[in-house]
């Protein structure tokens, strides 16, 4: 069973590697941003499987932390880059 979990981790790591191609090629900022979602979700899956493979349940906390920050990155980029253009509703 353990070899299977290691295989899964290896496989998911390779999908992360493949996703890096999209970071590199772009072409737009949004495309690159999309890869943070890939890293967030896949990273989480890797950590979940690793936590079972290593028998270290606390790794689940790393998983949730990483995903929280991956999402914050998206929120930040989108809000930062559209801040200048969005209609300023209630700004005084």
């Amino acid at each position, binding site marked *: 069973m353990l070899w299977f979990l290691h295989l*899964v981790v290896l*496989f998911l790591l390779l999908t992360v590697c493949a996703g890096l191609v*999209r970071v590199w090629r772009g072409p*737009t900022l949004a495309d690159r941003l999309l890869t943070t979602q890939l890293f967030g979700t896949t990273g989480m899956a890797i950590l979940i499987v690793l936590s079972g493979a290593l028998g270290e349940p606390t790794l689940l906390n790393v*998983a*949730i932390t990483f995903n929280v920050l991956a999402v914050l990155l998206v929120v930040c980029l989108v809000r930062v880059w559209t801040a200048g253009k969005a209609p300023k509703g209630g700004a005084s």
Partner: protein
Amino acid sequence: MSVADVIAIVLISAGCFFFLAGTVGLLRLPDLFSRLHALTKADNLGLGLVAAGMAIYMANPWAALKLFFIWIFTLLASSTACYLISRFAREQAGVTANSGKEDER
């Protein structure tokens, strides 16, 4: 190898398939919106399956509950991220490609 292990292997393999689908979609699909569509949907399903498989493998109710909440949280968070990215791309593109069509904000 017990029955639980077999179920876990099947679930995790299915999860890996969806991760593969998401990544292939991210790399091969022609434009941003279809990539977004492929990645965020497939990956979240993949995560759910992997989490379910690991919950069975770990056989620990506390860990299983945590995995379940992690998955629910991820669903909420990444669908928001998906929406934000597509809106962002639309606003960025709207300036030249779509300038006549102003969406209501």
